[in-house]
């Protein structure tokens, strides 16, 4: 093999090696084996997951980040959840709650200063005020609330979540689980355990032999129950006491005991939790996003210098990104036991993935670097959207009964999402065409290639969006008794089909040529983004399961940017350059 050939594959291999390195488990922190504690399986939100997932999702919701800076160190999710569970006074002092809304800050008497993050202690004096404001705002339907009301409801919900977590294994003001176990049987203890059973966010105690697979309990429920206390309670008590007293040996012994016990009664839960924690640690979609950016930058560099070397190098990075992305997607499918698209978050991951794969195929067909560019841009764009959607909570949440059908999720949802991917990809190629037209020297052969690619992708998108929409109709006919109900999400999908059909007919009738085709393809981006996200903002209809309002402005800016690009696409070549 030639040296230059090896060099071109080196960046991709290096990227993969870096990804593998993140899979190694971290060592103990201050002697505490926190990673092992994070693997403890618990039942939350209707499914078994490692405690690490509970901690990460909660941190994302509360702080929009997966770590907390405290006393000069970055606390990971496992260390943070330990503080929350067993040292609540310490957790209360950590800068956790991200608050951006100036009116909410004003309500709390806080100033927008260097930090946007506030500790529970800083917010605590105003809890009553926040609750009052939030309850008043909650009386309104979500679309009717103003910015302040949304922000205060959001803060209140995060405070509730934090409070539930602090009261999940023992009440926040409890002297510890040991004392609680000793006090069993006294009326005061029973009252405390009752409120604990109600407040707890998750259930860490596995069902014992003879109990049903879903009979996980929280510590409050277990202490209220008759008979001998659940054997895992003493192990948990040891974990808590060891952590609070700063004794790593006791803590590690408690964790090992807890794992041993869970391993005997629920070995699958332990295995599942271990796989999911690996997925959490590697964060394949985040790393994929980084690799796509590197691919894009390498490709840009290739247009300035050593194209022969850098263009293949960019492709190797793209391939590495696609591999990491695919492994992430596959892991989610295996962990969840479901087809790839189950909610808005996973649709973003999948739209990006399908666009990347299409881009890789295009690059292999044409080898001009454009396939790499659009694939990397699509991959990066969709994963960054997914990254923001992950702030809404557990991305592997359970499916509502009406959506609980792997067959239809696998057929309708996947096909229609591939249709979205295709329409976006055509739009991205058209954007590349537009930018090239005004920046790069004229090159009819490349232009021809781009037009061919766009045309082909639009045909592909029409096929998938049509079949996907129709399969959705059939699903609706099977579950609700009507093939077509003019529901907002259905209408969104229909718009994509109609628009792709309009483009193709206009092209066949020769009403649009190169420039028109490209401008229409960019307009496809607007239609797809509106039907993908805009519909969720309407908050009506059977499909509005992914409501969000923060994204409204992002969407508005996206639409404006696309309109500008359409204008740029239609403008004469290099109109901005002074004529000689």
């Amino acid at each position, binding site marked *: 093999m030639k040296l230059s050939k090896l060099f071109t594959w080196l960046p991709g291999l290096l990227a993969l090696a870096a990804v593998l390195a993140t899979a190694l488990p971290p060592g103990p922190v201050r002697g505490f084996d926190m990673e092992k504690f994070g693997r403890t399986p618990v039942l939350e*939100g209707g499914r078994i997951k490692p405690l690490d997932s509970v901690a990460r999702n909660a941190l994302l919701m509360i702080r929009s980040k997966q770590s907390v800076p405290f006393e000069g160190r970055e606390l990971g999710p496992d260390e943070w959840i330990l503080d929350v569970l067993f040292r609540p006074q310490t957790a209360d002092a950590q800068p956790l709650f991200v608050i951006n809304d100036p009116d909410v800050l004003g309500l709390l008497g806080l100033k927008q200063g260097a930090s946007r993050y506030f500790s529970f202690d800083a917010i605590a004096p105003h809890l009553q005020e926040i609750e009052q404001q939030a309850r008043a705002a909650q009386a309104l339907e979500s679309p009717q609330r103003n910015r302040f009301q949304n922000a205060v409801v959001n803060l209140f919900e995060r405070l509730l979540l934090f409070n539930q977590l602090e009261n999940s294994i023992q009440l926040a003001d409890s002297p510890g689980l040991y004392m609680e176990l000793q006090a069993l049987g006294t009326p005061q203890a029973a009252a405390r355990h009752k409120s604990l059973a109600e407040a707890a966010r998750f259930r860490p105690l596995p069902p014992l032999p003879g109990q049903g697979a879903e009979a996980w309990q929280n510590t409050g429920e277990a202490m209220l129950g008759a008979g001998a206390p659940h054997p895992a309670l003493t192990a948990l008590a040891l974990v808590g006491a060891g952590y609070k007293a700063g004794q790593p040996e006791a803590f590690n012994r408690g964790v090992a005991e807890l794992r041993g016990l869970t391993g005997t009664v629920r070995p699958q839960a332990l295995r599942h939790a271990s796989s999911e924690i690996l997925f959490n640690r590697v964060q394949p979609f985040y790393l994929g996003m980084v690799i796509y950016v590197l691919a894009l930058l390498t490709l840009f560099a290739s247009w300035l210098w050593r194209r022969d070397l850098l263009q293949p190098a960019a492709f190797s990075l793209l391939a590495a990104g696609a591999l990491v992305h695919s492994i992430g997607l596959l892991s989610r499918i295996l962990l969840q036991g479901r087809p790839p698209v189950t909610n808005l978050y996973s649709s973003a991951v999948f739209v990006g993935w399908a666009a990347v794969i299409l881009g890789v195929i295009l690059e292999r067909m044409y080898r001009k670097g454009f396939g790499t560019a659009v694939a990397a841009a699509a991959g990066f764009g969709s994963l960054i959207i997914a990254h923001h959607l992950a702030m809404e909570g557990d991305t592997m949440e359970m499916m509502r009964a009406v959506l*609980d*059908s792997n067959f239809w999720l696998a057929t309708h949802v996947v096909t229609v999402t591939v249709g979205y991917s295709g329409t976006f990809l055509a739009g991205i190629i058209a954007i590349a065409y537009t930018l090239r037209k005004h920046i790069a020297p004229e090159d009819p052969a490349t232009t021809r290639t781009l037009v061919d690619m766009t045309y082909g992708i639009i045909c592909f998108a029409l096929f998938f969006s049509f079949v996907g929409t129709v*399969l959705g109709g059939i699903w609706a006919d099977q579950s*609700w*008794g009507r093939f077509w109900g*003019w529901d907002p999400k259905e209408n969104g999908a229909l718009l994509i089909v109609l628009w792709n059909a309009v483009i193709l007919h206009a092209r066949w009738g020769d009403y649009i040529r190169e420039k028109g085709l490209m401008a229409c393809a960019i307009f496809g981006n607007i239609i797809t983004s509106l039907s993908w996200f805009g519909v969720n903002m309407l908050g009506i209809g059977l499909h509005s399961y992914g409501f969000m309002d923060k994204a409204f402005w992002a969407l508005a800016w996206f639409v404006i940017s696309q309109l500008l690009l359409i204008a740029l696409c239609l403008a004469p070549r290099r109109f901005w350059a002074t004529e000689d």
Partner: protein
Amino acid sequence: MIRRLALRVWNFLASLQVTIVALVLLMALVVLCTLAQAELGTLGAVNTYMRSMLVWRRLQGVPFPLPLFPGGALVGLVLVFNLTAALVKRFEFNPRKLGLWVVHAGLILLVAGEFVTGAFQVDTRMTIEEGQTVNFLESYHQMELGITDATDPARREEYGIPDALLRAGATVAVPGTPLTFKVKRYYVNAQLAPMVQGDPPSLANMGVGAGVRITEAPPAASDKEVNATSVFVEPVAGGISYGTWLVSAVLGAPQSFIHAGRTYQLSVRPRRTYLPYTVTLRKFSHDNYPGTDIPKNFSSLVHLSNPARGEQRDVLIYMNQPLRYDGKAFYQASYGKGDTLSVLQVVGNPGWLLPYVSCMLITLGLLAHFGITLYNAIKRRQLSGEAA
């Protein structure tokens, strides 16, 4: 001259321009219909924009509504006509075009299916409590004045006067009974409240209605609201008047009078359609995911009994698994009363198979067409590659 003009019109009608304009109009209608759903409810928006020939709007200063936009039905008809004309005009047998022909034939069928649905689909529901046996469907939108002959509690006879006949001043005889009803006043939707001092006397002089104040309300717009349909009626039988009664969908206990030894109960209820068979709810089940309030599944175990056909069987109806029987489909739709009551949505649509057929046609056609195109493109590339 006329021939040439006719030819030009024909060419225009079969042209791609018409196709594109119609498709763009359809897109605009879909957007309008989606946005209007927040205000008009799904059914209202669909009737205004999609199932109408023209979209009518009242403008300020103009006393009558104006047709401002072509409606979905008109655009659909234009599309079907345009497509048929194009098929007739440009038809040539060419295996390379075969895919396209199939696609467009499928499209005509799809639009036809939506017309059939709009015209013939009947949406009803069946509400059953555990252990109860029901032999009728209830309408979602139409109401009726229900008359129940409750003389023998074990064998109640049901009669109904559809809301379409309940117009003020009308006199309606109920076939099968000696009863005639004089309609005094009818409200599609109303607000009812206990009468307070100073209120004008009620039209009713019998039953609870005499003490109720009633005010007219606009018909329910959203899908969540239900009309409180109310009516003042005077039952007459054998020349005897039984007084004027206020009967309303929101008044609880049925009101009754006795004529010739028979007890008649009055109520306003969703319009009923009786079936030649009965459905009994044996068991309704509903689970949440543990520790959450996310529903995991619902199902109704029902017993279907059709003596005329000698059919007696149990059926389990659950999500995505309806019972198709007698040209109707029974879906699990809702539940209530602490999981002892099940609501089935019952849909009769003679055209329900059309979309399935048309989808098969279009999918196969698209596959064939794009497959052929792709094959030719690859072949061309190979040829030009060899030539280079």
